């Protein structure tokens, strides 16, 4: 068996022979840095406008609020529900920068381009998010979205906010579920950013590979076939629904990415086994649930970064 020291030595030996074009990288990084700095300043300016409008809306709401206001806990819960009032719609369209980046980030063929009205979900979600969900919040949301009687155990708390990994038992064996929530601004393409006039389009559209993936290991008998489809969900944005290739252990599952109009990407992976404790343990031919179920889970407005 290869020893740890041998692995370290191998990595160092290989890395020592790697010579990138450092000068070019630094030049391009500097150019890109200048662009990012300009964009950040523009974003701050737009954000300030939204904050001012938000304060004005809040002040107006307080003036008009009925005497029996909700307790704070209820207000917190209510903030997770899709809103339908004109206040949130107004806030979503208030900032010119937010509106334009929302349209461009939504990807090709979105409502802004086709002239279709925004859906209730996209209208109700804010254009920017600052606070990641805690593991506890994510676990509560996932639990609320699964069929009654579902069992979630062993939630790992070591990934930090925005990522949940948990074992799911639907009665047919344990399955590892991972949910990840990422604001779009964390996903950037250097090449796109460097293109002149590319401001606001720094989100890569989801697509399926051609040809599709191939298995790295043995796919279990009776497994779902590899598949991939990209579509626009009812709430807008762009979603990629896939049944992934099997890794060396025969571990595979549903993998769904939803890039939502509120600039938040929700990703879920539902496996055909669990980790025991570090390696995949395949205990079923197919992952639990159906593609339809996991699509609904991913598209829920309850996920808020």
């Amino acid at each position, binding site marked *: 068996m290869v020893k740890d020291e041998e692995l370290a030595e191998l990595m160092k030996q290989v890395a020592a022979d790697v010579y990138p074009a450092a000068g070019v990288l630094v030049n391009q990084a500097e150019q890109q840095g200048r662009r990012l700095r300009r964009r950040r300043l523009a974003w701050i300016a737009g954000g300030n406008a939204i904050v001012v409008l938000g304060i004005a809306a809040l002040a107006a709401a307080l003036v008009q609020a009925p005497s029996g206001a909700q307790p704070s806990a209820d207000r917190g819960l209510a903030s997770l529900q899709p809103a339908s009032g004109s206040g949130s719609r107004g806030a979503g369209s208030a900032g010119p920068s937010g509106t334009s980046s929302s349209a461009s980030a939504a990807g090709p063929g979105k409502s802004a381009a086709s002239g279709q009205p925004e859906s209730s979900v996209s209208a109700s979600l804010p254009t920017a998010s600052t606070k990641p969900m805690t593991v506890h919040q994510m676990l509560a949301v996932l639990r609320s979205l699964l069929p009654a009687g579902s069992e979630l155990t062993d939630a790992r708390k070591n990934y930090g906010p925005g990522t949940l990994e948990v074992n799911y038992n639907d009665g047919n064996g344990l399955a590892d579920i991972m949910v990840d929530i990422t604001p779009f601004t964390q996903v950037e393409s250097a090449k796109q950013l460097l293109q002149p006039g590319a401001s606001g389009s720094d989100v890569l559209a989801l697509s*399926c590979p051609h040809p599709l993936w191939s298995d790295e290991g043995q796919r279990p008998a009776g497994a779902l076939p590899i598949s991939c489809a990209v579509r626009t969900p009812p709430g807008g944005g762009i979603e990629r629904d896939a049944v992934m290739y099997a890794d060396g252990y025969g571990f595979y599952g549903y993998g769904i990415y939803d890039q939502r109009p509120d600039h938040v990407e929700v990703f879920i992976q539902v496996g055909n086994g669990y980790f025991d404790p570090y390696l995949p343990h395949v205990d079923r031919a197919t992952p639990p649930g159906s593609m339809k179920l996991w699509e609904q889970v991913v598209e829920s407005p309850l996920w808020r970064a």
Partner: protein
Amino acid sequence: VADRTEDGGEFREFASARAGQLFRIAYLTCCDWHEAEDLVQITLAKLYVAWHRVSKANNADSYARTVLMNTYLSHRRLRRSGELPVAAMADTGAPVEDHDMRLALIAALRQVPPRSRAVVVLRHLEDHSIESVAQLMNISPAAVKSLNTRGLARLREVLDADRTLFLS
């Protein structure tokens, strides 16, 4: 203006000195030459934006590695859509003395899950401690241990088959 020029000079000096090592970390972590270039470029660009604050805090090296890993872990999820089977990937890296050895390592690393791979590279290429990796990746030491063990187990399994290539 004078301050900015000075900042730019300092940044350039730092970036030029560190770009090579950042690239090596990126390359072994993402296992793709072009993606590694993207990652290092984005990392340095973000460092440029934050340079005034980062350089004053005297933690530019740690900051760069943290940004690199965060960018890699978020970047790759979208890159998955373009992932190709290992055999179909063109090797665009610079020539090395033992080409087979590098290919074997890169092919093996590709089979390690991304987070585990990031931990393994920081731990064993750069010799960071468990605590240091935890800090750089903003995860707990327990998570680092878990990901490291998981990653090494996978790496060993794959490399054992190719042992004669590089450990003769």
